[in-house]
Structures are given as C-alpha cells and as structure tokens.
C-alpha cells in the first residue's frame, strides 16, 4: 500500500501529467494516420526522451504505445485502411458496419472494447504484481536465458506461413548484435578493419531505419493518396452502452490479449486470431463475421488493446521484451539506469506502480478525447501520403542524428530504411530482426554467466523454473510440428490464396 501511495506521489507532478497528456493524445493522432503507427513514433522520439526524467520519458512513450491502437481503429472503420498494423482485423467488421450506415456504432464499440481491453490488462498486471515480485527473484541467468530463447523461438514460429523468413531474419538480428568490439575478451567481430564498425551497430539506428525511414520511403515511392472519410454524427457515449450486451466476448478477448501479451514473441496478431475465432465459434450469428458483426469488432479491439499492458509483464519482471515496441522501451529503461528485472520489483516497486497508474490514466484520457474529438481526427487522416513521407523523413533525421551526431549512423539507418522497404514490400516481418538483436544480447550475456556453474547439460535445467521453461520450449516445437502436419493435410491450393491483402507489416 505504501508503494502504491508513493507511486501516486511520483506521478503527481506537472511534467509527468503533461507527458501523459501529450503521449496519449499524440498516440491517438499518430495511430489514426495510416502509415505512421506507434513504432515509427516511438522510434523517432526515443533519443529525444533520453534527456528527460525517466518517468516523464517513459510516460510519453507508454502513452503512445497504449493509445495508438485506439486511433488506428478510426481509419480501419471509416475508410477500410488500418491506422496501425494491428487494426487490420478491425476492418473486417468495422468497415461493413460503416457501409451499412453504422459508423458511429462501430466506432463507439471499438473505443469501448479498446478501453475495456486496456484497463482489463492493467488490472491483471496489478493483481499479478505481488506474484511477480515473488517469482521474479527466482529467475537467475539460466532462467532468463531460457526465457529469451523461448521468445526467439516463439517469434519465429508465430509468423505462420513464413517461418523460414522469420528464422533467417531473427538470426540476422542476433548476428547484428555481435558486430563490433566484444566486451569480455576484447576481440573484434565482423568489423572488416573498419573503425566505424568497431563500436557495433546501435539498436536505435536499426529501429529507426527499419520502422521510420522505411515507412517514409514506402510512402515517398508509392502513389499519392488522400483519404476522405465522412464525418461521424451523433453521441458516442450512448452507442458505447451496447458493449455491455457483449460482456462475454469482450472479457474473453481481453483475456486472450493478456495471455498472448505475456508470452514473449507472440503478441497482438495471435491474440486477435484466437479471440476472433472464439467469438465466431461461440456466436449465435457466426455468418455475420466479416460482414459487420459487432462481436467480431469487439473481439479484435479488446484483444489488441489488452496486449500492451500484458507485454509489460515480461519486460518489467524479467527484462525480456516480447515485441518490437517493448524492445524499444527496454533501451529507454537502460538509458535511465532503470534496469527491468527481478530487482525492479524489490527495489523500485513505487516506480512500477507509478507506471501502472499512468497506464490506467492514459486509457481514461484517450477515451474522453475520442468521445469528443473523433471528427477532428477524420481531418488529420487526410494528409496526402507522399507529403506524410516528407514529414517522417524530417522527423527520422532528428531521431538518428541527435543520438551522437554521426553521419555514419544516418547512413546505416538509411541502408536499413531501404532494407525495411524491401521487407515491407515482400510482406516479410521486421520484428524478428529487432527481437533477435535484443534477445541475442540477453542470451549471450546470460548464457556466459550461467554456464560458469553448470557441469553437465542437465544441470542447466535442474531448477524448477528452468525445467518448466525448457518443457514449454519442447512443447511449443512439438505443437508446431503437429500443426504443420495437420495443415498440410487440409491445405488450400496456392491459386486460392490471396497474395494481396496481408498488409500486416505496413507500420
């Protein structure tokens, strides 16, 4: 209780509250603009937050992280273009509802479901905290190594249908992390006698290249488009009450979001897939799914908004990021000397509580903002796409250049920008590279320190948590093989699959 009160005290500062307001409202606006998304915004803002107070910087980024999906639902519903990648499923039921003249109802349900999912996840996080504080100290080097390994395996296997590509890109990420002067034996790795490679390849430079610059290039090279959504009339608040009729779907979807968010490497897409499938199977009108079913819309939005809160669990408790955005946040924690992991819950519980409360507040701020400002947002999304590319390019410059005023960093980021564009065009995943870099570093450090006390391979898993994670790794692999065999038996011919609609990597 003391920690909770002291957490509230930490937040009760004008700069933290201003950061919360700017982060959450900024996040909604950024999320609503198709082609920007939270990843681009967080990548650009990362270096700027380094000079801020830890809680202020983290609150801004958390605000953007937690609120962008609210904004992303708006263009998904109104113009059939998801604002952020994870709103793709929202278009399936949201847009048909708009076509039926039910745009207000669809938006209200999406906002309500998002709010429910977001707050549900944070409540789970708060309830789980004492348990986490109890379990986290039992995570030694080998447990963290195994959890990071599980994260890498899951991020590869979660990219269904593209496991090989995800595998090679994750391996590429691990490789990138090893380039430069290695800190223990001081040997050079893949520097090719170039001084600029000696200091290694900075994660933030890669993130800015792969997320921000690549998106700018995609927009600049592509055709210019200007979306023109219709304004929404009537009160949102009244329409939101309908959510109470779908309590079961919303709770189940949020639970899937929490579960999938907690597991590193899985994230929003799997959570949405599971909750949407559940909602459809348990619905009285399953034939309406994909044609404007409110249940489908709720399943999608409640699940994706529950993920950010839950993804904070492995990040805060173990220092293991589950996806690209939490990987970026991890670097902010490190810069401010807040080391996520078992000690955080023991030594800085008030800081953890302050983050939780900030997350609840941001959901409230966003909901209130959206209830009144939806029509203003429909104007924001009318920026022509190529001009948006210019804006992202200017912003990306600040992100990369302000890190250490290095032209080389900018050139590397530009290179990764082109690489990211190719990956996006091919619809190949970018996230495994980032997770490969972050988890690769964790695995290298933790394996080295844990092997000092291991005599035989079995010693590695002789502690209960290590053994459990190891069994999970085996189960995940076995289940994947089983699914592959099952899918192979029921597969669709290539000609019947769609090559064009999967834009899940666009942001």
């Amino acid at each position, binding site marked *: 209780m003391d920690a909770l009160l002291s957490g509230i005290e930490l937040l009760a500062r004008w700069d933290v509250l201003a950061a919360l307001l700017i982060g959450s409202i900024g996040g909604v606006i950024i999320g609503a603009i198709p082609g920007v998304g939270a990843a681009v915004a967080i990548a650009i803002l990362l270096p700027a937050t380094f000079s801020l107070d830890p809680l202020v910087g983290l609150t801004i980024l958390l605000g953007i992280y937690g609120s962008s999906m609210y904004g992303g639902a708006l263009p998904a519903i109104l113009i059939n273009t998801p604002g952020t990648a994870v709103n793709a499923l929202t278009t399936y039921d949201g847009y048909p509802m708009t076509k039926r003249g039910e745009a207000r109802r669809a938006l209200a349900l999406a906002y309500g479901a998002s709010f429910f999912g977001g707050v549900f996840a944070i409540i789970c996080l708060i309830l789980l905290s004492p348990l986490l504080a109890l379990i986290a100290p039992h995570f030694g080097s080998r447990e963290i190594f195994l959890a990071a390994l599980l994260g890498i395996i899951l991020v590869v296997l979660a990219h269904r249908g593209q496991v090989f590509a995800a*595998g090679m890109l994750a391996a590429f990420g691990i490789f990138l992390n090893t380039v430069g002067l290695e800190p223990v034996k001081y040997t050079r790795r893949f520097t090719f006698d170039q001084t600029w490679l000696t200091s290694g390849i900075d994660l933030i430079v890669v993130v800015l290249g792969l997320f921000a610059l690549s998106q700018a290039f995609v927009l600049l090279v592509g055709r210019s488009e200007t979306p023109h959504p219709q304004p929404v009339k009537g009160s949102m608040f009244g329409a939101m009450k309908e959510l109470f009729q779908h309590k079961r779907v919303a709770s189940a979807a949020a639970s899937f979001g929490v579960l999938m968010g907690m597991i590193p490497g899985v994230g929003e897409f799997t959570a949405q897939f599971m909750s949407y499938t559940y909602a459809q199977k348990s619905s009285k009108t399953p034939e309406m799914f994909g044609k404007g079913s409110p249940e489908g819309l709720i399943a999608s939005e409640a699940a994706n908004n529950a993920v950010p809160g839950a993804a904070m669990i492995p990040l805060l408790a173990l220092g293991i990021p589950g996806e690209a955005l939490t990987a970026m946040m991890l670097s902010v924690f490190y810069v401010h000397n807040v080391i996520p992991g078992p000690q955080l819950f023991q030594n800085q519980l008030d800081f953890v509580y302050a983050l939780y409360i900030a997350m609840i507040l941001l959901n409230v701020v966003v909901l209130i903002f959206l209830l009144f400002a939806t029509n203003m947002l429909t104007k924001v999304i009318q920026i022509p796409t190529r001009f948006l590319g210019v804006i992202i390019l200017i912003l990306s410059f600040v992100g990369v250049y302000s890190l250490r005023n290095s032209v080389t960093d*900018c050139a590397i980021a530009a290179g990764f920008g082109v690489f990211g564009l190719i990956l996006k*065009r091919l619809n190949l995943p970018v996230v495994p590279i980032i997770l490969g870099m972050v988890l690769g570093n964790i695995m290298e450090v933790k394996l080295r320190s844990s092997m000092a006390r291991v005599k035989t391979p079995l010693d590695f898993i002789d502690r209960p948590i290590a053994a459990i994670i190891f069994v999970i790794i085996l189960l995940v692999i076995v289940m994947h093989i089983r699914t592959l065999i099952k899918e192979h038996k029921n597969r669709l011919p290539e000609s019947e699959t769609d090559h064009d609609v999967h834009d899940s990597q666009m942001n």
Partner: protein
Amino acid sequence: MLRIKTLQDLFKRYRRPGDLVFAVLFLGFALFLLVSLGDQTTWVKRTKTFAQPAFWPTIAIYAMVRFGGLHLVGSLVSPKIEGRWVEVKFWLKSLEYAVWFMVYVLIVPLLGYLPASILFASTLTFRLGYRGWRWAGLAALVATTVVVIFKTFLQVKVPGGQLYELLPDTARAFMLTYF
C-alpha cells in the same frame, strides 16, 4: 482480389513478386558471412565454448544460411508470380530518397538545422509534385515546427551550422542555442 478462405489464412503471409530475388540476395549475403567467419572472429584459448567471442556469430550465421536456404527452396518450388523486375525497380527507386536523406544529413552542419530543414522540406515537396507557394509554405511550416519542438523545446543535440558564424554575435548565440 480473391476473398480469404479461412481465418487462419488471414494470419499467413504469402509471397509477393520479388521474393526469389530477395531470397537469393539474402542467402548470398549469409554465405559471404559464413566464408568470412574464420577471419572476422576469434576463438580464444582457455575459454569454454559458450563464452567464446565467436560462439554467437557462428550460431547466428549458420542459422541465417540454413533458414535462408530453406526460404530460397520455398521460393523456387512455388509458382512464379509476375512482376518480379517491376518490384525490384520499386526497391531501387527508394535509393533516390535515401540519397535525399543523406544530403539533408550533410547540409545540416553547413546551413544550420532550421535553414537546412526548411530547404530540404520545400525542395523535396516540390520534387514530389506538390507545386505552388501553398505547398512550399506548408513544407516550411512543418520543418519549422519540428525544429521548434525538438531543438528549441526538447534541446536535442543537433549542432549549429557553419552559416551561423556569419551572423552578428547576439543573433549567432541565439541561433546556436535554439535553432
């Protein structure tokens, strides 16, 4: 555009034109790294395998070669999708904007952050086909806003331009600090 058949298909990512070109290039790069592995990493004496500096690069590169090879096989055995070279041309077109970006990076220390940003934004906007004073003004406004937010308020580290040296003392100090 064909409708998706099953829910599961929604989450699968399918091949796009240019997949084979990328698969070949990636595998080629991975093989180059594999060949350089001996030269570019060191196996240190009296150190356990897991603590060797070369351990993780080896694991990563072997995984890149293996997965890259399987990805290439996947591309080879799948039916060809038309438009491969059109797609490669699209990739190459992005190089133009990478060059624009680098020119921007290089002119900032010369002209200063604010003038360079305004010049860059308005010229690139013109290049993209948004012509007329309205667009140029809008571009300049966006550039100024970004500079004011990041340099004036957030005080991010962007050095002043050499051009500022030509200004009178008071104006120079002001420009160096805020723009």
